[in-house]
């Protein structure tokens, strides 16, 4: 993404992808592309949707900015505030809870020194709790970007964190690419 005076703009390749998505819906129904385009927009904006980015998406789809805001604020996968490079989403619903999700969450809290909803001071990690990720047979489960990590134990968490730290993990990559 090029940042000219704070007005976001997708590069050619991303715009092609957006246009290809818009074509999946009937003429005049380009608003249908809003959810997929917001996923792309978020990945192009360090993992969150700024008002400027949402206004840009509105202009791409020829809809009012408020139509974007009301949708972006409805769905839990969109972040309306800045997040760290790597967003760790810990499932806490029944089946994961039955299999030790609380232990996994508190292990993340201890290792990262943050609570759910917070970002580490170095901006590397954000911890989030989420509701059912539909992988209950392999509970406890977390999601990072488009990856699922399942059957977690504290020692697996340690290994994952080491790996992510060493590779400077970014969870917000364009999900279509």
């Amino acid at each position, binding site marked *: 993404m090029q940042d000219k005076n704070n007005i976001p703009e997708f590069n050619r390749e991303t715009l092609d992808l957006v246009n290809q998505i818009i074509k999946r819906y009937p003429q005049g129904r380009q608003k249908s592309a809003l959810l997929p385009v917001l996923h792309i927009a978020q990945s192009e904006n360090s993992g969150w949707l700024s*008002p400027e980015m949402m206004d840009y998406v509105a202009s791409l789809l020829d809809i*009012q*900015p*408020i*139509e974007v*805001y*009301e949708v972006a*604020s*409805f769905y839990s996968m969109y972040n309306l505030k800045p997040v760290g490079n790597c967003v760790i989403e810990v499932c806490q619903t029944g089946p994961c809870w039955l299999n030790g999700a609380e232990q996994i969450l508190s292990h993340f809290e201890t290792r990262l020194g943050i609570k759910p909803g917070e970002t580490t001071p170095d901006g590397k990690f954000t911890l989030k709790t989420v509701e059912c990720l539909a992988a209950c047979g392999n509970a406890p489960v977390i999601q990072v970007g488009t990856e699922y990590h399942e059957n977690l134990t504290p020692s697996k968490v340690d290994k994952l964190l080491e790996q992510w730290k060493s590779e400077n993990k970014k969870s917000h990559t364009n999900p279509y690419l």
Partner: protein
Amino acid sequence: MPLLKVTIDNIEVEVEAGTTIMNAARIIGGKVVPPAMCYYSKLEGSGGKCRTCLVKVAQGSARDPRPMPKLVASCRTLVQDGMVVQNITSPEAMESRQAITEFLLINHPLDCPVCDQAGECHLQDLSYVHGLQETRTVEERRTFKPIDIGDKIKLNMNRCILCYRCVMVADQITEKRVHGVLGRGDHSEISTLIVKAVDNDFSGNMIDVCPVGALTDNTFRFKSRVWFAKPMDAHRKCSKCSGKVVLWMKGDELLRVTGRKDKYGEVGEFICNDCRFEQKEKNDWIIEGPRTIERHSVISQNHYEISPGESVRMIK
């Protein structure tokens, strides 16, 4: 098209096809009319959300007399020929209405003493009739900071019941909508997201359609309780709207201008912001005379006496 026969609380009425139970009940009038907190006949797609108008359909139609399995939203359910509906005669509907009223109040600030809407508030009316004497919730209430959306309109989200009427007004009678319902579930709120003025010629109608004190007129703020103000029908020549309004007077002082609301709280014609906010001198208007308003909670107290019908007339 033949008329359809429907019975509501043992009263029979014939209506055109495509009429909802709510509107059939409004044709009968009086106590069989279910309360409407979100439905607004002038707004397309309104209704179905607040659930205060749920009624029992004891018989679906003459052809298929089975009762409907659940209570239905009378504002969104069409009358079938031979339908039998129970509103105030259904203990089940009454019980659910009491529950819905409680749901609408558990996060409401109950700040009627400092709310400009008091006296003309539909939630207040609803709770007089269907509210519990005691509150059963000890939980902390959801709170938001009141904000100005535009210089003339105050938004107090704490009082909002999320009826979506103001959103529909913005969608349907203004050029551009800049506010909407953001967030979801119990965190939903009416908002513009970033501070943006709701600024267009008809935005003031959001105040008139708001059933509660969530959207109020900043130019009327704390000036008078509505039941101390005298409503007068008046009009002026206006290039943007019909110019037909109600003036809310205190002596010669013009406190507020609103649209003309019927007994269900619906304005007949939407008015423009110029008429509502800018024409605040008595001389700006041709006064037709005192407005007849339906007996309607405390607003009908003080200056009114009961006339033979249900409606009350202002004492001159």
